[in-house]
């Protein structure tokens, strides 16, 4: 029963959904502060390559995650400097970062320069729970045959939900994303809030990237995230900027990402190209559905998303 195709698809949906979940939660934090970060894909790739490098050097998965987070965060710091301090166009800056860092960019250079290609990872994230749990029918493989990355991502979801809904900094960051002028007038430092949330968002994207190189793939291949960063951005919109819905959406898209491999393994003959294109088609559909101006307002996009804040000068 645990080998039935549905269970296998759902289990791999969780596996493939986890990097999306990390990256989308990071993007959600940045967007809630009013910063649109289209550099997620680049930050994921830099996180993936640096995390992989760290594990090859130190054999420590914990250190690898820290390095991946720092790498992603550092990229996001560039974005924050450009769009918050210099008030550059957020779309242009984000795209530039993805092009700069992405496949055939900085991440490829680092991977080649550090000779990371074609090496098996020294250590990878394995399932951690006892076999008795993992063998439970249906839920065993889906929920309990997973690595610490998956359980860690659940913790992050809960933390983000509580942070945004129940804490004072959470209230403040929502105010900054909705109405920076109101927040500023009440003495909340808009610049600091935007920096912090953009950088933390980048760090989560870095960890999301490391999910590929340390668990899914698990090795370094140029461009191994294959567009997961873009899916994560669409996911935030699709989830109406709510972390709880991001969780569900991540596994939904994770299922589509995993489908080609699992179906192939089960001997189902559908053109793999068709299946592989599914998550991207869904992304485009999601974006089309929610990107009309009216829908955006109703669906809960932060009102100041994408807009630099300037104290009104005359």
């Amino acid at each position: 029963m645990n080998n039935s195709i549905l269970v296998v698809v759902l289990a791999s949906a969780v596996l493939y959904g986890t990097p999306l979940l990390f990256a989308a939660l990071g993007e959600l934090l940045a967007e809630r502060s009013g910063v649109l970060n289209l550099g997620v894909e680049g930050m994921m790739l830099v996180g993936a390559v640096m995390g992989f490098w760290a594990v090859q050097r130190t054999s420590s998965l914990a250190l690898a995650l820290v390095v991946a987070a720092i790498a992603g965060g550092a990229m996001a710091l560039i974005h924050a400097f450009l769009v918050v301090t210099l008030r550059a166009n957020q779309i242009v800056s984000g795209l530039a970062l993805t092009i700069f860092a992405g496949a055939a960019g900085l991440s490829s250079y680092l991977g080649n320069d550090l000779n990371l290609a074609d090496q098996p990872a020294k250590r990878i994230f394995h399932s951690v729970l006892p076999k008795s749990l993992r063998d439970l029918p249906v839920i065993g493989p889906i929920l309990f045959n997973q690595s610490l990355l998956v359980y860690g991502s659940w913790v992050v979801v809960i933390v983000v939900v509580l942070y945004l809904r129940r804490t004072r900094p959470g209230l403040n960051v929502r105010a900054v994303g909705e109405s920076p002028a109101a927040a500023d007038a009440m003495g909340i430092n808009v610049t600091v809030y935007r920096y912090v949330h953009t950088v933390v968002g980048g760090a989560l994207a870095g960890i999301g990237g490391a999910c590929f190189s340390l668990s899914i793939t698990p090795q370094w291949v140029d461009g191994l995230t294959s567009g997961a960063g873009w899916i994560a951005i669409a996911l935030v919109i699709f989830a109406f900027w709510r972390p709880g819905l991001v969780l569900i959406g991540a596994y939904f898209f994770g299922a589509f990402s995993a489908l080609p491999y699992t179906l192939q393994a089960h001997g189902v003959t559908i053109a793999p190209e068709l299946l592989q294109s599914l998550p991207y088609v869904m992304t485009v559909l999601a974006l089309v559905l929610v990107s009309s101006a009216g829908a955006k307002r109703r669906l809960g996009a932060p009102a100041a998303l994408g807009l630099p804040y300037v104290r009104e000068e005359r």
Partner: protein
Amino acid sequence: MGQQTQAVDLSERRGAGGAPPAVSLRGITKRFPAVLANDAVDFEAAPGEVHALLGENGAGKSTLSNILTGLYRPDEGEIWLYGERVDFHSPRDAIDAGVAMVHQHFRLVVPFTVAENVVLGDHRREGSSFLVHQRAIERRVGELSKRYGMHVDPRARIWQLSLGEQQRVEILKALYHEAKILILDEPTAVLTPQESEVLFATLRSMAAEGRTVIFISHKLHEVKAVADRVTVLRGGKAIATTTMADATPRSLAALMVGREVDITRRREHGGEIGAAALELDELRAVGDRGGEALKGVALSVRTGEIVAVAGVAGNGQRELAETVTGMRPMTGGEVRVHGRPLRGGDAREAIGAGIAHVPEDRLGTGVAPSLSIGSNVVLKSYRRYPIARGPLLRLRAIRDHAADLIKRYDVRTSGPNAPARQLSGGNLQKVVLAREFSGNPRVLVVAAPTRGLDVAAIETVHAYLRDAAAAGVAVLLISEDLDEILALADRVAVMFDGEIVGEVDAETATVEEIGLLMAGVRERTP
């Protein structure tokens, strides 16, 4: 009665032996690129007084208050509060020092609840714990609103509230932060006259508690009604400070403008009122957020007549203007010009039918800001000779046409090639009026035509509107400024919640009568 004694009282308080003033600004100077916004301004307000800051747009009132609330730093000068020198590096410093401001455009987070907005930014009281205790802050805000008689549900979200209620939230915010000095920037702009009276009572009781209220306005009768003293700003300088007892609206107007002005109420335009030119029949339209913004508007304007639509902002006036001029599709009803119905939702059709439009947002909707004045004045006529010949524009004709209009309407500019965005508000409005009039309209829809203009420009714009009516144009004037309406209109229709709730004759109407209608109290049918 109380005014006289209070004035004496206050002048004593200012004397050398009395308590130090609550606010003392000394030699405040603030420069912006190309503008000297405040020029060595001295200003003092005592504890327990309502002090009006009077001045035209651009006189430096907002800059001065932004300096007092820590948003701007002065280039020169000192701020003293209760006899101590303070130096504000950020709005938080000002809030902690007890200074709060109710901005003209509210600083509220629209999706948040009232309680969340009130405690936002708090780092000293109930709202300062790391975890937000919804129920505790709601209780606290509920108590506060009860104590000051400003009813508003702490759990309501801002978008559910009327503008008057939103203003109460802003004042509650100040009270929650224990503001001793409260600045209000044009607070009555969003209120009916009756709501303004309630606000004035609240401000008076806050002053009676020993707080200092600084009331920024350019409306003379309001200043007269609420303030103990008034400081007049003009051109960035503090011109005079007087007690209200010594001031008359006429003397204040002269101080504000720098010359004698005529503030009499109504002037005839001499237009001959004829047949109905614009007729609206059960007009319906949907607002930006969905929901009906116009719920069956019926109105007619005759040739040579000025009909004003009064109402508190956000009751459908903007949608009305947009629907009549074809910028917003209608969902029901009919618009007729000289008896001919329009299909609606087509600005070009409306222009063709002879409807001219002076929109509320003159820089965004009225002109293309980056294009030259020349291009802007032919925006509605560029398809036809003499501006165009076939597919080509005749640049010389455009330039001559623009130069002619600039001269006739006395637009202060470097020439037809200057981009429209460089013009001041008054000159920009002249350009829009010039373009609309040059199309020989039969119907003119004007929205908030003098908002943000100085007194001289207001007089000019009013004169053009009277001229239009005198020339037989049917003018539909949409305005939130009752003074303007009473000065111009022949008839006043009052709009509330997407409907016309009553019509009165401007000759005999009183502010109270219109105010009640603005609040949605319908005329009793006999």
